[in-house]
């Protein structure tokens, strides 16, 4: 479950296998369509959605452009509130820090709140190697952990499992991790949730150390924010004596007030709710209420390399809502595992090759795991232009060029075996570089989408041979933009 899944085939191969899995495709299709329809309704309720989206983008961009200043401010505020701040250049260092902190408490068990950052660094495995057992407490993460499986979606990591499979997993494996599943467990979701409740409650009551991530960190006050639904987050953040939060450096926002934007856009984009059931905020330690020791581990692990790329930097705006996964025709067919990373879908296709570099086969293939239909950009609550970054990264893979790796400037060589890609690239760059052509092309593609070929002609054939061409959205984004009067000159 660590950052790079060892032995992971490159995207085209992994995707082709997933596409052949009927049950996986049915589970995914049902799930992604359900969430995206609900999301559209939840977003439609706010008449100022585009203004909130723009503000979110601006706050994040501003923060990234002054990231050093805001991190130092955050560090001061957390320290003043009684917390201890640690800095980690990479996964190994972050894991080392956490393992040492846990060992210093004398404990050999920790409870965990679902967190992408700790999955990214492979924390559970690193702790296991040190004799420390980490219990996942989010229901979906618990399912993944019990099944010795990998997460396949940012928000619902067990989205690829149906209720029958979950019943079997609980029945067979809960006993190896603590309280066994109740006798005669059926596949009713309410019964399954109850089994998880009983299984985890004994862990919450016993736990002395908890590990979390955070959705946001507020520089001016030193406040951390965790957004969740089940209450497992509240349990972990409140009951144990020691709390360790591992958070990517890009999660900082300047002010308390900035949360008014993200606490409106995140739940609606993510679970399609007006507000998620629980949000917890804490600032350092509070006398008599909650953990008495709080450690914040600020994680780089490729984020500063991403920051160094003026086009790719925008990926750091991501608030991990998962909306882009649910609208992506490629994700819907390929499933989350094909992306070979804890970050699947469109955001994974741009984030993983930037965090990890494009030298491995899977990372070099990820920028091609897209049809560039633009649906991901349309739904993104912080307006990350994912297609733009994809094209940029394709160019890097195909042609090589300057990049930053672990803080050092490097010149990448063109990836081997990407000749066909290079041809497709040139075409894509021509189209995307000329707004007029792009507009016509998108309209044409949308209007003719029923006639859309399954393979591309000419030099594109080799490129499309290993890809299903997805159907195009009914209305091009630019048409929608103009129709809804949201463009303000943008689409001229």
């Amino acid at each position, binding site marked *: 479950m660590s950052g790079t899944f060892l032995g992971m085939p490159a995207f085209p191969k992994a995707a082709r296998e997933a596409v052949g899995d009927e049950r996986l495709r049915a*589970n995914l299709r*049902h799930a992604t369509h359900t*969430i995206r329809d609900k999301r559209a309704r939840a977003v439609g*309720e706010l008449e*100022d959605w585009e*203004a909130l989206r723009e*503000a979110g983008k*601006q*706050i994040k*961009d*501003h923060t990234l452009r*002054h*990231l*050093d200043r805001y*991190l130092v401010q955050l560090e001061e505020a957390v320290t003043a*509130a009684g917390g201890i701040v640690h*800095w980690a*250049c990479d996964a190994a260092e972050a894991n080392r820090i956490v393992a040492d902190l846990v060992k210093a408490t004398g404990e050999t068990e920790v409870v965990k709140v679902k967190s992408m950052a700790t999955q990214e660094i492979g924390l559970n495995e690193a702790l296991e190697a040190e004799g420390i057992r980490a219990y996942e407490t*989010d*229901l979906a993460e618990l399912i993944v952990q019990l099944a010795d499986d990998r997460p396949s979606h940012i928000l*619902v990591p*067990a989205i690829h499992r*149906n209720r029958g499979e*979950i019943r079997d997993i609980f029945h067979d494996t809960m006993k190896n991790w603590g309280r066994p599943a109740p006798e005669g467990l059926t596949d009713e*979701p309410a019964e*399954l*949730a109850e089994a*998880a*409740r009983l299984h*985890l409650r004994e862990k*919450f009551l016993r736990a002395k150390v908890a590990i979390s991530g955070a959705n946001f960190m*507020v520089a001016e*006050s030193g406040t951390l924010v965790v957004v969740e*639904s089940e*209450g*497992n987050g*509240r*349990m972990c953040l*409140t*009951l144990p004596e020691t709390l360790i939060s591992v958070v990517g*450096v890009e999660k900082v926002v300047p002010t*308390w007030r900035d*949360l008014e*934007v993200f606490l409106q856009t995140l739940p609606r984009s993510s679970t399609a709710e*007006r*507000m998620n*059931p*629980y*949000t*917890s*905020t804490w*600032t350092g330690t509070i006398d*008599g*209420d*909650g953990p008495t020791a709080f450690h914040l581990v600020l994680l780089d692990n490729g984020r500063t390399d991403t*920051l*160094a790329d003026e086009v790719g*930097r925008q990926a750091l705006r991501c608030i991990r809502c998962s909306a882009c996964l649910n609208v992506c025709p490629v994700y819907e067919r390929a499933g989350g595992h094909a992306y070979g990373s804890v970050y699947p879908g469109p955001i994974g296709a741009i984030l993983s090759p930037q965090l990890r570099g494009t030298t491995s086969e899977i990372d070099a293939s990820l920028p091609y795991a897209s049809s560039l239909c633009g649906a991901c950009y349309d739904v993104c609550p912080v307006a990350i232009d994912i297609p733009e970054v994809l094209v940029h990264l394709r160019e890097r893979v195909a042609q090589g060029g300057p990049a*930053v790796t672990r*803080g050092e400037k490097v010149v990448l060589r063109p990836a081997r075996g990407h000749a066909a890609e290079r041809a497709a690239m040139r075409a894509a760059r021509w189209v995307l570089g000329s707004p007029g052509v792009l507009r016509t092309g998108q309209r044409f593609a949308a209007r003719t989408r029923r006639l859309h070929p399954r393979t591309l002609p000419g030099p594109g054939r080799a490129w499309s041979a290993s890809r299903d061409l997805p159907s195009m959205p009914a209305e091009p984004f630019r048409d929608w933009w103009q129709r809804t009067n949201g463009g303000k000159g943008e689409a001229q």
Partner: protein
Amino acid sequence: MSSREIVLGRIRRALADVPAGDHAYADAVTRDYLREHGTRTREETAALLAENLSEYRAVVHRTDADGLPALLARLLTERGATSVLVPPGLPADWLGASEVTRVHDRAASSAYELEKADSVVTGCAVAIAETGTLVLDGSPDQGRRRITLMPDHHICVVHVPDQLVSSLPQALERLDPARPLTWISGPSATSDIELDRVEGVHGPRALEVVLLGGR
């Protein structure tokens, strides 16, 4: 060099393209989004809160100060509660009509002890109508974070209109980030199994809200 210096150094080099006189925070963000969505009377705002809470399967009641003790007694009885957690600053008369055993949260109380309580009654810091959200800030009438987490039944009393706001921006400006805040929008829920919403995983499975006053 410490990791702190390494990371900050990498950031500064990565941002070499950012001009020295780049926008100050105050100019960098256009805040032309709304402070609240739509205009409502106080009564309409209270009705919207009730509606949104109900949609997330919280049960909403309305009463005035005189009716509160009887209502709370009835809700605890209907639930079959034999013990109720009481935050230190809960007004004494609120539970005056109830026979249920009161359990007081103490510094030494273990999670195991608190878990045995059937219900908990608290006040509220701010309630947000547009999102159906209650915010607790650890004040004496709300108690420590753990007491609203362990029992399976939470009754939260909201003063209307004093503690009621329309929108999230209005709530944030009232709240103090230095306090430990818990935002609650309906009972605990999960949608992790085939996206079927199931109430109650780890937090209280039943949330009842009493809107007090301002009928």
